[in-house]
């Protein structure tokens, strides 16, 4: 099963090196803020460099996992420390490393509790990268939960006025999802073999056995099949993270209250975990729940429907927002709908679309949140109605904002388009009506973003914003990479899609797609 162990332990280093940063910062005196920040930058830089190296080392022509690291953790329960990446997870690892590195820079101005802030940020990176590389469910779950606490405090301490509410809401929602996942994990473990020796947490083995129909012959529980329960529990766990209507209300609160860098991380990475989990768990282990051999089941249709609801509902709600950050937050809800649609399609196009959307939304939403942060730093408010004419005052800022916004609304030629288009194309094969309804979301998304542009950037100059400096060097440095990515992945989406393709083919082949 695991043929080659990566002798450099690259993934382990990527995952755990920020932990060294945590320790380093822990023993740095509290008043040496600059040292702490530099340390944080260094220890998010290391994973970034390593992730780039991983990109180089990764053999894009192979399906399946690579760069394994594997050793026994708890032998009694067959828990192993197994990490490895495939075409679905490795781009997200890279994305995480990039975003985290720039998150450190964008929070350079933090003054309150610097030490704690950066320690938590580094801890967060451990959790996120850990989830992406874990190939053992137990390990996955540990990392999954590891993210909660840093996030809680990052929002709760360094957030906006309603931070306490937002933080606990985030925590509760996510925990609610993950405990169901825990139940599913245990049930799967217990069902995975007849004897303790046969049972496993290995995602590879679980997927193998799941595809062989292991979970299909579970008992009926409360009138529903065993595998359906498992699927449902896992789905809810991931749906909350994505977030899927109606589990989404933590998102606007958390995004709005979080400090800029944390919003970036939230939108850029944390939402991706849900989509990733759906692929890694629900689709890989329970393909027969979504696909009955000839067509999508009611479950898949339901997921597609939820995706549509997300698109439309998220967009409409975004339209009613008066706060820029909230608008962007709800736009994320709309965008993640496409991920659901694409995944529900279960074909190459759909899955590729969903994955591209995951990555690209990571860059574009990160950029938008950074941009909102930039203007918030200057104006100390985010009321759309109170802005106006910023394009004349801050032309550079406006240009980058346009780039971000148009990427986000899916303008062809920019990164955001491919995910949406491919998701729709993929989903259209099975759910034409649902896709038709989703196009409303496309239109409304454009509407609210343009409305924002009109009210914030266009219009007559306003004197109060006259003295505002345009982007500083640091802000440039934070924004430019994302802008470059938005364009680059717009004109060269194959950079991503080729990387993912073998894995996507493998996943799609579970659903009757011959590659």
């Amino acid at each position, binding site marked *: 099963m695991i043929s080659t162990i990566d002798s450099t332990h690259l993934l382990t280093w990527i995952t755990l090196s920020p932990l060294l940063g945590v320790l380093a910062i822990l023993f740095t005196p509290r008043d040496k803020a600059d040292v702490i920040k530099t340390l944080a930058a260094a220890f998010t830089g290391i994973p970034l460099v390593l992730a780039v190296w991983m990109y180089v080392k990764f053999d894009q022509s192979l399906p399946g996992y690579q760069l394994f690291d594997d050793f026994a953790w708890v032998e009694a329960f067959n828990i192993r420390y197994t990490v490895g990446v495939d075409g679905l997870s490795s781009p997200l690892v890279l994305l995480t490393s990039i975003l985290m590195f720039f998150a450190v820079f964008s929070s350079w101005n933090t003054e309150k509790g610097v030490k704690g802030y950066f320690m938590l940020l580094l801890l967060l990176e451990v959790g996120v990268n850990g989830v992406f590389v874990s190939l053992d469910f137990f390990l996955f779950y540990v990392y999954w939960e590891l993210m909660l606490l840093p996030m809680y405090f990052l929002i709760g301490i360094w957030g906006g006025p309603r931070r306490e509410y937002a933080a606990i809401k985030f925590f509760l929602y996510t925990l609610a999802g993950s405990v169901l996942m825990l139940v599913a994990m245990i049930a799967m473990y217990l069902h995975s073999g007849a004897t303790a020796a046969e049972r496993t947490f290995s995602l590879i083995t679980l997927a193998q056995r799941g595809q062989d129909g292991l979970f299909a012959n579970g008992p009926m529980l409360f009138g529903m099949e065993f595998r359906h329960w498992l699927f449902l529990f896992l789905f809810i766990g991931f749906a909350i993270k994505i977030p899927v209507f109606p589990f989404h209300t933590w998102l606007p609160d958390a995004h709005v209250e979080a400090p800029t860098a944390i919003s970036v991380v939230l939108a850029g990475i944390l939402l991706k975990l849900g989509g990733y989990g759906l692929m890694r768990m629900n689709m890989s282990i329970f393909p027969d729940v979504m696909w009955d051999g000839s067509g999508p089941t009611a479950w898949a249709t339901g997921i597609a429907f939820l995706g549509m609801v997300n698109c439309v509902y998220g967009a409409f*709600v975004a339209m009613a927002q008066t706060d820029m950050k909230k608008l962007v937050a709800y736009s994320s809800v709309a965008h993640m709908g496409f991920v659901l649609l694409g995944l529900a399609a279960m074909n190459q196009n759909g899955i590729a679309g969903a994955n591209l959307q995951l990555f690209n939304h990571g860059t574009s939403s990160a950029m938008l949140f950074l941009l909102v942060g930039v203007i918030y730093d200057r104006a100390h408010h985010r009321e759309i109605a109170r802005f106006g004419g910023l394009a004349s005052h801050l032309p550079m800022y406006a240009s980058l904002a346009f780039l971000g916004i148009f990427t986000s609304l899916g303008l062809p030629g920019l990164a955001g388009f491919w995910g949406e288009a491919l998701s729709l194309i993929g989903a259209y094969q099975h759910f034409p009506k649902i896709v038709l309804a989703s196009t409303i979301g496309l239109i409304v998304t454009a509407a609210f973003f343009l409305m924002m542009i009109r009210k914030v950037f266009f219009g007559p100059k306003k004197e109060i914003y006259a003295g505002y400096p345009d982007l500083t060097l640091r802000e440039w440095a934070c924004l430019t990479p994302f802008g470059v990515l938005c364009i680059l992945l717009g004109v060269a989406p194959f950079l991503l899609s080729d990387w993912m393709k073998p894995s996507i083919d493998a996943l799609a082949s579970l659903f009757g797609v011959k590659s």
Partner: protein
Amino acid sequence: MDFFDDGTPGWYALAILLLPLAGFCFNAFTYRTEFTRKRGHIVPLLTIGTALFCALSIFKHSVIDYDADHAGGHGTHAAAAHGAPADGSADEHASGGADGEHGAARAAGSLADPRWRWSSKDHGGSYRLIDTGALRLDAGIAIDHLTATMLVVVTLVAFLVHLYSTSYMHGDKRYSRFFAFLQLFSFSMLGLILTDNLLLLFCFWELVGLCSYFLIGFWFENEDPPKASMKAFMTNRFGDAGFLVGILLVYRMFGTTDLSEIYSKMQAVAEGSAAVPSLFGWETGTLLTVAGLCLFMGPMAKSAQVPMHIWLPDAMAGPTPVSALIHAATMVAAGVYMVGRIYFFFTPDCLAFIAGIGTVTALLAATIGLVHNNIKKVLAYSTCSQLGYMMLSLGVGGYSAGLFHLYTHAFFKACLFLGAGSVIHSVHTEDMREMGGLKEKMPVTYRTMLIATLALAGVPFFSGAFSKEMIVEHALVWGFGANVAKLLPALIAIGGGGLTFFYMMRLINLTFFGQPRDHHKFDHAHESPPAMTIPLLVLAFLSLFSVGWPIPLFGGKKLPELLAPPPALASIALGHDEHHGHAGFALAFAVLVISCAVLWVGYVLYKRTYKERRPGPEVWVARFGGLYTTVTNLYYFDEFYRATVVRLGNATARVLAIVDSKVLDAAVNGVGAVGQLVGKAFALFDRLVVDGLVNLWWHLSHAISKKLRRIQTGNLQDYLAFAVGGMALVTLLFLFLA
């Protein structure tokens, strides 16, 4: 790879595409330098000029040279084009000349596209954008006569507009940015023309929309441009959503978005060797029609067809060169171009719909043009109307006529807009009521505009006349022998000519003739500098002898003949391939006569109204007051949207009250208001219901918590009693289980 080999259009095509992009990048990245700020036009002029040169080369190479070599080779070869040998010279390529609308293909007895076509993919020249396994998106370049001609038109107009703008935009604080956007637009528009993939076409389609958005909103400090730009983008977004759904349908049917592959798949369907997978249980015909209609949603918005035309007049808030380039000559014509590009795909029902939409647009927009006082808006409605003509033509089967009109129109309408720009530049107003008598002061502008006007009106021997008459002929051929309703397009096309003449003469009259009505402005008026007049002259020249018609300049063929239609595969597939009669000479002559008569009527009306003032326009207004009001209010389209969506009771009364103040914003506000309303409702739902449920659960558990705490009274004996009760309860549970 032989893509870059000498003698192929590959290099040129790539240069055409990438040079403007390079220009854009240059201007964008050197935004802060002194050079770009002051001389931001130099690089763009160079790039677009080179592009023009390349376009002409391609045109010469692929059209003139080629057709000269193959003058006799009608319809003999065909699909060989796709298997062209490695040397890539065009010699191997086959050409199907146009001897009639469907003739070539049928004569050959084959459904292969008989027309000349050069595809970069045959020469290894493609750029793989993405490959998911199911969908492989190779960006390639496909050039045929349609493309080659279109390239020339676009680069030429773009070059002239660039040139014109150096003067018109002189001194604007965002001078270099203006050129950057022009460049970006040129890139997108040329990409739209060159691409061989429907999905990529859609990409460029949206990109031109984006450029349009930014250029309309160029003066975003003012009140109107931002609104207008947003309105334009949103209206187009509606159309694009339909377009996208159409692409989805196409992909679902054929599993590809590559145009030539779609063609060959359609071909298989037409030959009966393949079937279209069904959807919703529809038959192939319905499916194709629906797909066609969805695809047509895009052109409908982009080419400002009723009822999605509302954005175009508003778009005049942008700088005038932009109006000339984007909203008259090129982008709005992209819809027509696209219909032409996938013409084989449209079923007869679909085409009839297109014809109907075109007809309605042609008539409505022309009537609005009659009464508007804003010079640019008159031209805008005129554009609408002419685009209607083109659609009408395509719809009735006049493929080459419609596209030919596209080319002629591009030149004279650009000329008109640039002329209007010249006037506006001079008198600083767009309201024709404040102009008048400028004939003497602006002789070049006046003369060029007059020529363009005559061309537009279709006065014989001006370019417009040729294309228009072809349209009318086709409409008549289409309508004859069918029921009366099918004759309507032809009748309106003929009648529209008179209207056109009337409103254009009115424009010229109000602007250039008579006494100056605003002396202050008149005194400041002056002829524009050469940078502005030269483009006018060039365009006027082209309007005069529009691209050489009727001289067979191009390899022994006249221009429209180059634009041979593809086989109507959809119709063939559905067995609807009725063969329309040819427009014989008699018909052509009849049309000419009728058109002239109508023009005469138009002219007489104009003369009586404006020259002799018996009765003057006021009387007309008085006599047809209701009609006039309706027309001046643009047929209440904006209001219709607003009224229907916001449900404001008695629409008419209401509209009359608000009309002048808020006309511009109406539709966007209307649709926007509904969106906002729905958004607010959803947001409320979000807060009250979704969040509310969570909070309810919250409060509930708090309430329970409070109640639960009550039993912790602090009184020891209560505790004891509870414990005893608890024991009893547990026993009870056991009994229950027993």
